[in-house]
């Protein structure tokens, strides 16, 4: 059984939680840009958190399901002919139309049983620069057939039958969208980067005072920030050092780059800041033109933010499990 792509939208790929343990070989973890929304979508269809889903970007696809399939769409708020943020039992042969993201930029469409694609290095995530993982290592196209689990109809019906508060082919309740931006500019917490002190005081202040916007040439590797260009550090070349999800690099042209899921594992540009892990999924929900600003924090606050996000997600996951009668 498969789901067919009738219209691919913009940049639709297969993603899961990513492949860890290969950064020493130059391979980033990759995976969902917004892992929080992925976790919610998986939970809504009764999956474990390590299943792969479709990552949609800004404009969603038209999909046709070859069998009755339990699906859920989370993350950005897309125009769609299905209710979002909740489980929906789609009938065999029915067209699911997903249009523009009205709030946020990335959506996750999970299906019951996950996407049974052969993992590469322990993950089904598509790594576009390396042309591997996911569906043939590439963005999905019109006509692609994505595999569903063999017993998809029975599994979907069985799971749907367990759900409380049913209303036709969906339910009356929904999961909270935890990462879609309420209003812009969004606030991102940063700690000082390794080279923060090398920038002069004016540049440091400009970095924190500027309302930045996501530049059009941003992608899964990194978000380029438009705004007043920053003056680079006066002295010396930077020795290429390790980078991280959320590292903010300042290349010679002064336009900062925030490293996202498919980032390079090392970099030779000075790093002015590091975005707190808990804030990266919200950043992933900004489309080009989306606005943000930075506020300084420290490691302790960053850890508290991480714990608070974990608790909000766990609370939502427990709520969904309860609806399944678990």
């Amino acid at each position, binding site marked *: 059984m498969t789901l067919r792509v009738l219209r691919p939208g913009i940049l639709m790929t297969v993603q899961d939680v990513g492949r*860890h*343990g*290969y*950064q*020493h*070989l*130059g*391979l980033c*973890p990759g995976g969902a840009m917004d892992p929080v929304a992925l976790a919610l979508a998986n939970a809504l269809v009764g999956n474990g958190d390590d299943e792969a889903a479709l990552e949609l970007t800004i404009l969603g696809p038209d999909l046709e399901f070859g069998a009755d399939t339990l699906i859920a769409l989370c993350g950005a708020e897309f125009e769609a002919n299905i209710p979002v943020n909740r489980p929906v039992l789609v009938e065999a042969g029915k067209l699911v139309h997903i249009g523009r993201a009205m709030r946020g930029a990335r959506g996750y469409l999970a299906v019951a049983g996950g996407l049974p694609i052969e993992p*590469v*290095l322990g993950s089904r995530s598509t*790594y576009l*620069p*390396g*042309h*591997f*993982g996911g569906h043939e290592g590439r963005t999905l196209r019109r006509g692609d057939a994505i595999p569903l689990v063999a017993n998809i109809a029975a599994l979907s019906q069985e799971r749907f039958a367990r759900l409380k508060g049913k209303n036709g082919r969906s339910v009356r309740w929904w999961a909270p969208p935890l990462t879609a931006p309420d209003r812009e500019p969004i606030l991102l917490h940063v700690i000082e980067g*390794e080279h923060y002190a090398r920038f002069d005081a004016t540049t440091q202040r400009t970095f924190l005072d500027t309302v930045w916007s996501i530049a059009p040439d941003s992608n899964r590797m990194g978000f380029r920030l438009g705004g007043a260009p920053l003056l680079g550090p006066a002295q*010396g*070349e930077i*020795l*290429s*050092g*390790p*980078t*991280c999800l959320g590292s903010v690099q300042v290349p010679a042209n002064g336009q900062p780059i925030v490293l996202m899921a498919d980032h*390079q*594992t*090392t*970099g030779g540009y000075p790093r002015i800041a590091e975005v707190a*892990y808990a804030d990266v999924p919200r950043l992933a929900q900004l489309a080009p033109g989306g606005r943000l600003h930075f506020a300084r924090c420290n*490691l*302790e606050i960053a*850890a508290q933010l*991480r*714990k608070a996000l*974990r608790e909000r997600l766990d609370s939502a996951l427990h709520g969904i499990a309860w609806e399944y009668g678990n």
Partner: protein
Amino acid sequence: MLDLEVNAFVQRLAAAVHARGEPWIRDVVPALGGLALHFDPDFEGVISDVAAELVERCMKEGLPDPENVGREVEVPVCYDRVFAPDIEEVAARTALSPEEVATRHAAGEYRVLMIGFAPGHAYMSGLDAKLTVPRRATPRPVVPTGSVAIANEQTVIYPYAIAGGWNIIGRTPLTVFNASRAQPSLFTAGDRVRWRPISAAEFEGFPK
């Protein structure tokens, strides 16, 4: 800026940390002059303290000897002009013949300083001082897979076709990075690399 002793120390420390197999560390990444420990985001300890303690413990227990970090890797490389679009320019800049550039490049003993920039992309020290040339003024939009290139005091191999600004002086028929292999990367930091010059005919004879 680059200190080879610091680099070797970073690799020894990385090996020691990695060998401990701490479950809350997802990645241990040695770079040119620094080491990154990537923590599981659900780890609830005070990361800075825990990391400092871990490093201290590794130091106390003793780091592996440099010769026990990395392996010996022999890399066939063809310096034929078809694979070496920049070898004449390098020859002109260094007042050597293209053949001498190839001979001097192949003669060196190299060490992998860091994997970075792209999966499997190895930066190596050990280049003959006579072959020191700057990067190209304009990077190429696509460098062919397996290209062996030099700039400043280092040499690299491009693991797949990506943009790059180093001077291409040869190509290896080996697959540098393949995600479907048990060992996806031909190189890891600390490897000692020797080149084996091959002819264009031998290059073509390698299994694809």
